[in-house]
């Protein structure tokens, strides 16, 4: 009987959703393969993280230290590497989040254990882990296995698993000593800054018209803005539009922007990268217009139009005006 370990992620007093998504998936893998499930928590002792986690795992291993209030790859790497060496878990799951991306590759080099990142599914076949990834913007899937190892490291794409209500664990909370040789960190946390606050709150709008890379030029946004005004919709956008400084960040829908829950989401020239799709999970009806019939947005949209967005925008304007 082996162990599956899940690294808990928390920020500003809250356990991040990815943690429960991973614990939910890990529970399924543990049931199938008679493994035990361990959540690993690093904290400065504030908050009730361990209490929240104990109903999701057989054991919650807690590292408590004043220096662990915020994520720090230097500390996490040394602590997790030591714990992995001690317990040799079968699989370690971490989030494919900004912090997971900061930690997991370093942990893999430090421990020598193989890593596959950004997995949308994790399976165990003949006692070996296999993972499913999406590559080329989700147009192709990839099944990946690891070289033979004692421990396998995996990072999981956020929103890949939806935790369902299950019989809660009554996990044991175990405080673990820190390794003696904690390094002086080379990176020091200063503060969190909210960059998405602005004049418009897209997260509350009932009707969003959203533009993506397909808008082509900054000038073209104007006609969509006009359409939005005429239709009583709020204008939003996907990441490339903000990257190019065509619209301020508070318009951005997606993982690094805002999650939205409009009744209607009209996506114009948005391909549907997973970071964007995660942001519209709460949307009612999604209508997507895109020239690329293989654009991933059509996999999540309710209605699709494979056409030039400008033609449809012009026609919509005409119909509204008449």
């Amino acid at each position, binding site marked *: 009987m082996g162990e599956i370990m899940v690294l808990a992620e928390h920020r500003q007093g809250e356990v991040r959703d990815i943690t429960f998504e991973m614990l939910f998936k890990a529970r399924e893998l543990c049931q199938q393969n008679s493994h035990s499930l361990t959540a690993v928590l690093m904290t400065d002792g504030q908050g009730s993280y361990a209490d929240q986690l104990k109903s999701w795992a057989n054991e919650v291993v807690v590292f408590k230290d004043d220096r662990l209030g915020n994520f720090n790859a230097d500390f996490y790497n040394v602590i997790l590497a030591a714990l992995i060496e001690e317990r040799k878990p079968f699989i370690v799951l971490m989030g494919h989040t900004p912090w997971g991306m900061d930690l997991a590759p370093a942990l*893999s080099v430090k421990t020598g254990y193989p890593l596959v990142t950004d997995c949308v599914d994790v399976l165990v076949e003949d006692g070996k882990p296999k993972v499913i990834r999406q590559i080329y913007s989700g147009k192709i899937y990839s099944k990946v296995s*690891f070289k033979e190892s004692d421990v396998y490291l995996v990072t999981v794409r956020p929103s890949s698993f939806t935790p369902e209500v299950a019989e809660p664990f009554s996990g044991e909370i175990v405080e673990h000593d820190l390794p003696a040789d904690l390094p002086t960190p080379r990176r020091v946390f200063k503060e969190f800054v909210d960059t998405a606050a602005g004049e418009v709150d897209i997260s509350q709008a009932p009707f969003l018209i959203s533009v993506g890379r397909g808008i082509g030029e900054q000038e073209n946004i104007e006609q969509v803005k006009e359409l939005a005004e005429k239709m009583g919709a709020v204008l939003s956008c996907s990441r490339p539009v903000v990257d190019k400084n065509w619209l301020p960040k508070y318009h951005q829908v997606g993982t690094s922007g805002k999650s939205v829950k409009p009744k209607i989401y009209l996506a114009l020239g948005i391909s549907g990268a997973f970071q964007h799709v995660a942001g519209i999970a709460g949307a009612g009806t999604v209508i997507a217009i895109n020239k690329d019939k293989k654009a991933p947005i059509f996999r999540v949209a309710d209605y699709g139009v494979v056409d030039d967005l400008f033609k449809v925008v012009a026609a919509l304007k005409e*119909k509204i005006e008449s």
Partner: protein
Amino acid sequence: MNIVVCLKRVPLTQEVDLQVNSDKKDIVKDGLAFVVNDWDNYAIEEAVQLKEKLGGEVTAVTVGYEDDEEVLRRALAMGADKAIRIDPGERELDAFVISKILSSVIRDLRYDLVLTGVQADDTNEAMVGVMVAENLGIAHAAVVNGIEVDGNELTIKVELEGGIDEVSTITLPAVLTIQTGINEPRYVSIMGIRKAGKKELKVMTIDELGLSQDYLLPQTVIEELFLPPETEGAEILEGDPGTIAEEIIRIIKDKGVSI
């Protein structure tokens, strides 16, 4: 400040119907256009801007074949001073192997900072940059969208979820993986690329680096690539733009949204 930038050339796959090869290990790449990985383009721009402010040298590095030199020439045209291509030969490559090759080249260069994209547009692993840092035993930060230099220390912004940035300080030398949107990459003209042809572009082999076969074993295996499972997906609205517009307006009103 001396900066090394790691770049990758990737196929352009928007508006392309991708197919899987017969051995199911790769996609059919014939006929695809190739470009510099978008994230790496921001990394090279950031490096050149830092050099313009602080002086020093920018070296662009890629692991790849002759065709991949295109991204190095482009980096030289943007303002890099020299470039290195490491030819991997017939070797199987994964992020582990590539990061080891890059680390072994960078170790012998004079550098204060290593920049690369958060991830590559093709396989989006987000592994190589951070692995290079750990191989070199230096500090790192992933998903950086702001850099300010203060002597031997940088103040950086890391992009987290939900519009939150994490501000921290990091000591040099360091590896930073760069997020899109950190700057506005400059335009590169064909003329500019031609002019940059005079700059040094060095080609090295794995043997010259003295790396053994055993050291460069991949740790992961692609079992198979496949097309996404068929899902019901969107109901496609057909017709001329006028008909489609009427249909969209009907759907919006049906859902109780007044326009």
